[in-house]
Every structure is written in C-alpha cells, then in structure tokens.
C-alpha cells in the first residue's frame, strides 16, 4: 500500500473506534468497549509503521506526498481541500502519537477500571488521538487548524472528565479559553497568509514565502507563535497546564506531556520556512523557551503535588524544545520531543501507579519510603528521572545536549543565552526530579503511606495492563536516545533533513563540551537533591527558612493567575454587569418602549380630533377652505 493510503488508515482507525464506542458502547461490556478503543489505536500505530517503511523505500528527496480527500470549503476565491501531507516530519509524529497513544490506552484499561463512565473516557481518548493525528498529518493549514482546535476540545473533555469536582470543570474551561486565544492567533496568521498567497496549502504557501514582504512574514510567524505558545503552555499563556492536572493521570501523560503540548514545537518545526524568514520571531521563540524553562523549573522545586511537579517539568522541557526550534536546530527540537514523550509519559504513568496505590493521594508530603512497597515502579521511575536529568545513556542525555550544543554553535547572544540557561536548567531539572524521587520512594514510610500501601500490597504493584505499558515506555527511555549517537549515527537528523533542515550544525568539540558540562551539572543536581531530601536531616527546613520569600513567590506561581484575573476576568464581568444595567435595560429596551409610547401619544393626539362634535368639524372645514382660498389667491397674484 502506498504511504498516503496508509496515512488515511492511521487517521480513520481512531475515528472508527470513537464511533464504535459512541454507537454500540452502551450495549457491550466494558472490556469489549475498552479493547475496541485500544485496538483502533493499535491499528493506527501499525499503519504508521507502514508509513515509515513506505517512506524509507523512497529516495530521500522524494518523501513528500500529498493526498486530497475532498473539497472541504469554498467561498469567493478560497478553495481548500481536506488534504494530508505525508513526509518524514509527520511520520515521526505519527509514530509517537499512535505509539505512545496506544500504550496509554492500554494503561488506562487498568487505571480506569471501575470508573463509572469508563466508556466515555475511552471515546474521548480516541477522539484525542484522531485529532492529534489530524493535526500532524494536515496538508492544508485550515485542516491543521481543525486538528489544533479538536485536540483542544479533547483536552477540555478529558480534563473535565471527573466533572463532579468543581476544580476539574474550572480547569477544563480555563484550558479551553486559553487555547482559544491561541486558535485566534493561528486564524489571523492564516488570514494574512491567504491574503498574500491565496492559498492555505502547506507546501504551496511555503514556496511563496520568499515573495512575501518581510513585515508580513514577521506578522505571520508572530501570530503562529501565539498559537504555539498557548498550546505548549509557554510564557505567558502557560497558566492552564498545572490546573489541567485535574484530569485523570493517563490524560496528563498523553495530552499534557507526550503529545498535545508539544504541538507548538511541531508547528514551529513544520513552518520553518516562515520562521526562518522572520529571524526576530525565531529569536523570540528561543527567548520564550529560555524564560519558560527557567521559570517552570524553579516553580517545580516547590510543588507538593506529584503531578504538578511533573507538569512544571513538562513546561520546562518544552521550553528547551522552543529554544531548539527557535535557534534553528529543528531536528534537535524534534528529537527532544520524541525522547521526552517516552520518559515523561513514563514518569506520569509511574506517578499514576503511586497515586493508584495510595487511593488517589497526590501530595508528596504524605508519601515516603514507597520504594519498599513498589520496588519495580521505583526502578522504572528512576529510569525516567535519570532520562529527564540528562544522565547518559538515558534518552534525555542525547537530546538535551544537542540543544545546548546548538546554542554554542549559534554563537550569538541568543545562542549563549540558550546555552547558559539551558545548563542552569539541567541542574534545576535534576534537583526537582530527584527531590520528588527521594521524597516519594526513599526514606522511612510515613504512616499514611504505610497504611495504604500495605492494604494495597496484596494486589502487586498494579494491574498487569499498567505494569507492562510503563515497562515498554521505560525501554524506550533507555534506548530511543541511541537514534542520535554523537559521532556514530544521526538517524533522526538525516531522516528529517530534507523537510526540516537545520540552520546550524554543532561541531564535535561543541557537543563534547555541552555534554560534559550538562552531565556534571545534572549529577551535581542529583547529589544536591540527595543531600537535601535523600538523607534524614533537617536541611530542607533550613533551606526553606532561608529562602522563604522566594519560595512563597514561587508557590504563588509568580502571580500570573492573579494578574490575569484582575486584568481580564474581573473587568469583563464588571463590564457585562454594568452594561446590562446602564445600557441594555434603559437604552435598548427603553428606546423600544419609546417607540410604543410615541405611537400611543400620536393616537391620542389624532384621536382627540375625532371628537364627534359637528361644530369642531365645521370649524376645521371652514379654516381649511379659507387656507386653500388664500393659497390660490396668493398664487394667482
């Protein structure tokens, strides 16, 4: 089968799963429904592997295939088809989305067991996978925007899945509205793009980018960046992501770590011709990445909810990816996206095992010494944590160091900022990651942990479906990095080069320097975490005392939520309230009553004439005659 046929199958399978669950879901057993959902994504993954093979069989310069299904929208001069673009970039994303997507589906079979509305959960998950695949396969920007919006929708549905918790509903709405702001950014970019090229076709517009005026390109790139920032939870549109942790843990792993939140990185990588033609916006992308990776890393240090620690870590890691695609190291950014998908999904799902074992408790202050009860999970979490901290030979080491080396190779102030803050970030990353690991898994068990873990002990560490899936992810976190072995193999870079070329190439010495520094800082970070949280000591308390003001600022997440509340939400509400009182009632409705009152008044005035008194009629008649006579006489003379 051709690559495009396979790609259509990739897309259709989760949609079929969704409809199956919607239509027959209520009349079949839960097992049947959940496995149908999983099977549909597995079919998708198999077809995605097929796409990869089909692409590899073609020559490297001939790996861009477009297939148009039907005309989706027309109007005036606009004529856009529902088309998909199969190329190495989309193939990589297809594999990640359907692969990790399948594992998380399978994990959810165990995790969500016994939930009241499991089938709804799986229908939403299928919808998400479909939307994400549509987003990465889109061959037309209009279709890309549809995928973009639909992942936002599925994210909303899944964050608010446990709708009986008010916080979940609130978080879901917040995520949707923040993402709607991003959607507007992209829509405006498309209006500009279409206005100048009269096309929204991805490849067609790219070939026209060079003929656009420079300021237009800058605007287009800037508006696309707004969308990317909102979706990827970068500064300043990041506040929805921590709240999104109200969703079930598999959702956090799939949507808010491995796939959807990295869509912004994909967008910048996909639109590299536009971003490269707008260097200011590219620099801005990198700077936003730098700011986010630093800020999120610092906030992660003080979080007490295990999922929020990982959520801030995700923001921080996506900051690295933004740095990479911003400075032009496209393949490094994409590579970090892939490795991150594995180790971050692993960390989330591992946290899910812990939460599952502790009856839905997420506060790490209540945990401790869990390694005793969950030894296998501890091992896997260690693997994920080492990968995140960038310790060789785990995956994060290879990908993060590529980004730092690219910063060095860039050799200007943006590049050095990426390098410097990236290195500092490596230390912070190791510190917050291992703070979590040591607090949760090591030391003496708290009484809370003991009670719950011992009650749970009879069941092993969790259902089989949860354990095997995180094992596979751990395997990925160990091995996937070797796709890019410095000096030996550059599988990823070579594969992506024809469609998403790098603007710069790091030399071996730069790579070595970056690796050495980053690994040492990572190891120092782990050591610091051990000193602070691994040993029995009162060091954490002392540190907390000395840095209390800083900590309280961080715990309030730098006050963004309050700022937005005061700057946007409250004024809007006040305006709506005041407007209803001062304008809608008196003016809009009032003017209407005025029309009625005028009518009433007119009828009274005219009605007064019809008094029925003959002498009045006679008088009016006489007056009228007199007036007419006067007028005729005036005209005659």
């Amino acid at each position, binding site marked *: 089968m051709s690559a495009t046929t396979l790609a259509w199958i990739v897309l259709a399978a989760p949609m079929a799963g969704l409809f199956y669950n*919607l239509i027959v879901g*209520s009349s079949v057993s839960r097992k049947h429904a959940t496995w149908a959902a999983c099977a549909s994504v597995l079919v998708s993954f198999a077809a995605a592997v097929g796409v990869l093979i089909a692409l590899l069989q073609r020559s490297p310069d001939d790996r861009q295939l477009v297939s148009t299904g*039907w*005309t*989706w*929208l*027309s*109007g*005036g*001069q*606009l004529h856009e088809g529902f088309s998909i673009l199969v190329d190495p970039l989309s193939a990589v994303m297809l594999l990640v989305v359907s692969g990790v997507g399948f594992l998380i589906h399978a994990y959810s079979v165990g995790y969500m067991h016994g939930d009241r*509305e499991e089938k*709804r959960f799986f229908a939403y998950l299928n919808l998400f996978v479909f939307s994400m695949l549509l987003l990465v396969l889109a061959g037309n920007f*209009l279709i890309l*925007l*549809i*995928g*973009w*919006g*639909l992942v*936002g*929708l599925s994210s*909303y*549905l899944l964050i*608010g899945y446990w*709708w*009986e918790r*008010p916080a979940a*509903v609130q978080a879901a*709405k917040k995520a*949707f*509205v923040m993402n*709607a*702001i991003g*959607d*507007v950014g992209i*829509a*405006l970019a*498309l*209006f*500009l793009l*279409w*206005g100048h090229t009269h096309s929204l076709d991805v490849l067609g517009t790219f070939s026209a980018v060079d003929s656009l005026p420079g300021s237009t390109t800058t605007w287009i790139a800037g508006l696309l960046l707004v969308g990317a920032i909102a979706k990827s939870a970068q500064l300043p549109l990041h506040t929805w992501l921590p709240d999104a942790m109200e969703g079930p843990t598999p959702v956090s792993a799939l949507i808010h770590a491995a796939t959807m939140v990295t869509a912004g990185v994909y967008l910048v990588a996909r639109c590299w011709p536009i971003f490269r033609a707008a260097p200011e916006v590219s620099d801005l992308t990198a700077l936003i990445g730098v700011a986010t990776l630093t800020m999120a890393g610092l906030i992660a240090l003080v979080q007490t909810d295990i999922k929020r620690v990982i959520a801030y870590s995700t923001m921080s890691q996506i900051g690295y990816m933004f740095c990479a695609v911003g400075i032009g190291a496209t393949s490094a950014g994409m590579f970090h996206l892939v490795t991150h998908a594995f180790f971050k999904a692993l960390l989330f799902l591992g946290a899910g095992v812990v939460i599952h074992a502790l009856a839905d408790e997420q506060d790490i202050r209540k945990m401790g010494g869990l390694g005793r009860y969950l030894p296998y999970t501890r091992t896997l979490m260690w693997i994920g944590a080492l990968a995140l901290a960038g310790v060789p030979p785990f995956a994060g080491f290879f990908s993060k160091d590529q980004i730092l080396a690219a910063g060095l190779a860039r050799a200007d102030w943006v590049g050095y900022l990426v390098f410097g803050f990236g290195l500092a970030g490596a230390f912070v990353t190791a510190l917050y990651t291992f703070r979590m690991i040591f607090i949760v898994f090591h030391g003496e068990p708290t009484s809370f942990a003991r009670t719950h873990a011992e009650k749970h002990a009879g069941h092993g560490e969790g259902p089989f479906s949860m354990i095997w899936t995180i094992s596979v992810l751990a395997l990925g976190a160990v091995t996937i990095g070797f796709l890019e072995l410095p000096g030996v193999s550059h599988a990823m870079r070579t594969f992506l080069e024809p469609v998403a070329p790098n603007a710069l190439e790091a030399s071996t010495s730069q790579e070595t320097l970056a690796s050495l520094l980053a690994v040492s800082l990572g190891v120092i970070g782990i050591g610091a975490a051990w000193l602070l949280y691994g040993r029995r000591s009162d060091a954490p308390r002392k540190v907390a005392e000395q840095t209390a003001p800083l900590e309280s600022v961080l715990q309030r997440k730098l006050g963004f939520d309050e700022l937005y509340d005061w700057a946007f939400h409250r004024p*809007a*509400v006040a*305006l*709506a*309230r005041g*407007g*209803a009182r001062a304008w809608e009632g008196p*003016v*809009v*409705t*009032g*003017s*209407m*009553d005025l*029309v*009625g009152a005028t*009518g009433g008044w007119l009828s009274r005035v005219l009605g007064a004439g019809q008094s029925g008194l003959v002498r009045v009629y006679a008088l009016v008649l006489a007056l009228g005659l007199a007036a007419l006579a006067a007028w005729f006489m005036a005209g005659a003379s």
Partner: protein
Amino acid sequence: MSWLSTALWVLPAAAAVLVGLAPAKLWGRSAFAIAAMLANLVLALIAIGQFDSSKGLQFAESRHWVSDLGLTYHVGIDGLSLVMVALTAFCVPLATAFGLWAKRENLRGYLALMLALEAAVVLLFVARDLIVFYVGFEAMLVPLIFLIGGWGGTRRVRATIRFVVYTLVGSLLLLISVITLGLSNGTFDLDGISANTSPWLFLAMIAAFAIKSPLFPFHGWVPEAYREAPPEVAGLLSGVISKAGTYGMIRFALPIFQEPSSDWRWLFVTLALAGLLWCSLMAFRQPDSRGVIAYSSIAQMSLITLGLFVGSGEAYTGSVFQMVNHGLLSMLLFLLAGFVEVRFGETAFARIGSLARGRAALATIVMATGMAALAVPGSSLFASEFLVLLGAFRYWWLVGAIASLAIVLAAMYMLRWISAVLHDRTATPVREGKDVRWEALYLVPLLAVVGFLSVDPHAVTARVDCDSHAGLVAPASTGSEICR
C-alpha cells in the same frame, strides 16, 4: 419544474387551511400536519437534488398579477433561496414535533398556525417580486403573534406587544421604500427594478431588516420574545425567521441600493462589530439558558451582517453558510432548553445543574451542541465563521482582528452554559427526570445535519457560492472575482 417554487409554499398553506377547518379527530390531525410538513421537506429535497449549482435562478415562475399596478407573481429559487427554504422545511416539522411532545393545548389552532408560518416564510424566501416578498414578510407575523401570545410564558402578552409594535415600525418603513421603488420603476418585479441611489429609501428598507435580524442596537425585543415564546417558536424565530432580515439585505437592500450601501458601509460594519462583541459579553452573564441563547443569537446575526457588508466573495458565502448553521444550531439550542424546561420544570441556572449525572445521552447531546455552537474548529459554524472573518480581515485587518475576539468570547459563554446545565452543583440538585430517549427524534436529526455539514461544508458553499454576487456591496479595495 417551475411548479416547485409555488408548491413549496402552497402545500403548507393548503394544509393549514385543512387542519384549521377539518373536524378530524385529534391524533389524525397531528399526523396529517406532520405528514404535510414532511411532504414539504421532500419537495425541498427534490429541489436540492434538481438544483444545478452552476446556474443562477431556477424553478422560476412569472405571471402577471395586477398589471395596472405593475404587480407580478414572480417566484424562483437560486442557491440562497434553496438553502433557506431547505432550512425552513427542515426546522418546522422538528419544532412541531417538539410542540406535540410538550403537549401543547388547542392543537387545531397550534398546528394550523405552524403550517401557516411555514407557508409565509417559504413564500418570502422564494419571492422575486417586492410585493410578494412583502406579503410573506408581513404574513408570517400573524401566526407568530398568536403562537407567542397564545402558547407563550407568563409575560407573553407584553413580549408580544413589544415584538409586534417594534416590528411594525420597521415594516412601515419597508412598505414606504417598496412602494416608492415600485412606482418609480413601474414594476415591483425584482428583474425590472433598476439601481437606486437614494440613501433615505435605503435606510428605510434596511431598518425593517435590521430590526428583524436583529442588528445592534435594535435588538431590544429579542431577549424577552425569546424567553416568553414557546421554546420551539423561539427556535424558529431565532433560527429561521431572523434570517428573513439578512435575506432581505442580500436579496433587495444591497443589490438595489449599491451606492448607498457602499456609502453607509462604515455604519453597518460598526454596528455589526458592536453587536457581536457586546452581545457575546451579555451572553456571558445571563441567568438562564434562553438568555444565553438569545444574546449569542444576536451576536451570530451580527457576524452575518458583518460578512454581508465587508464586501468580499469569501465573506458573502460565509455569511450565507452561517445563516444555515446558525439556523440549525439555534433551533437545536432552543429545543434543548425547552426539553430541560419541560422535563425538569426549571429554567434558571441557579436551580438546574449536574444534569449529566446518569443522563449520558443528554450530556452527549448538550456537549456536542455546545461545541458546535462555539464554532470549535472542524464544525460547520467554524467553516462559515472562518470565511466571514477572512473577508472582514481583507476589508480591513483591524475589523477582522476585533471580530476574531468573538471566538474567545463565544468559547466563554458556551462553556459556561454547558457547565451550568450539565456540571455545576446547585443548592437544590435535580434528581427527578429521565434522560433523553424518544426526544432524540427531534434533537438528533438536527445534530446529524450539523455533523454532515461539518464534514462537508462544501455541500452548501458550492451551491451558494456562485449566485447573488450581484447582491454584494462593491468590494472595498481588492477586486473580487465574480462567478459566471
């Protein structure tokens, strides 16, 4: 097939007379009325099937009526008429099905009025003669007055009076404009009316349409009428009948008064923008479903008006498509609100909530409707909004950018509505009341058509794209390519 245009309004009119006069038993009468409406829907489907989207006006019929006064009976269907007639023929039976489900009293009158309403609305959508149009435009008021006044809520009388008085002011101005045009041209036939440059006649004509659609700030009658009318009538009012306003702009006001409409474009663009943002904001603070839907409806209609006045082919097609989408969704939203009112006996958000518990079908339908109504990317409403905003952006980037803010506002008020109905906890949770079951009969068809149009918006846009370009305001700066 020239009989088709006439048959589409004569069939419901004749059925209305039969239902009103025949002494049949109650059940037979309902079945007959619904059958007549479905037969009309079949006629509309035949029209869709036979319609050739590469041609303009089809199924036309023209006869002399009162030659001395220049009156003709001229009807016909082009792409715009086609989609509007189809929308009407589709929505009326569903509204009536809701009425039967809600056990309306005095069925004889109710059914006859519904059929009469359909006849009048179809007549105005197929009319090619100013007087024929005016007859339809005014005739539909009669059944509406009785439907709201007779079957409405507790404050129905005041709502009806406001509605009637305000609409009649517009109608009067429209009549003046129509008569002046007819006398100066010697005919009322649209084909015989030449372009006119009088700003006064233009403003007089468009006043009626601005009140009907409604355009900010002439929307004062809307919230009350939509609250007090029976839900299915409110659905027809906002879904179908409001479209008579924008239809009148496209069919008559803009093509006849090309110069004045171009001169006054700034005013209408400003009013449309103001209405769009203002009413979106108002929708965000309403205390009940009908309030949210009413204000969101005004906002949507403002967007349609915006699309008509910015003068680009993209926005024109988008506006017409938006008329269809908004028609379907408004109908759906009002029927849902009506379902909740009838089944749970409450309207205020403060008294409903958590309805999702144990009611999976209701939750699915409300969620899907809400998402389609906030124009989530991929929905049919998204497709039409995209075209309108694109056109607005081409007219002036600032207008497009400001109008795009409505996307965020729509998300805010629709999400609030979804949560208020399905999720939020209230002091007195509703425990009684079953899930949607047979009610799916009048809800799911609407949702299915919305779904179909989301997958294939081209099905509508291809049919309306190439007609009525003559009806556009002359493009502002860039020349728009006119279809053959």
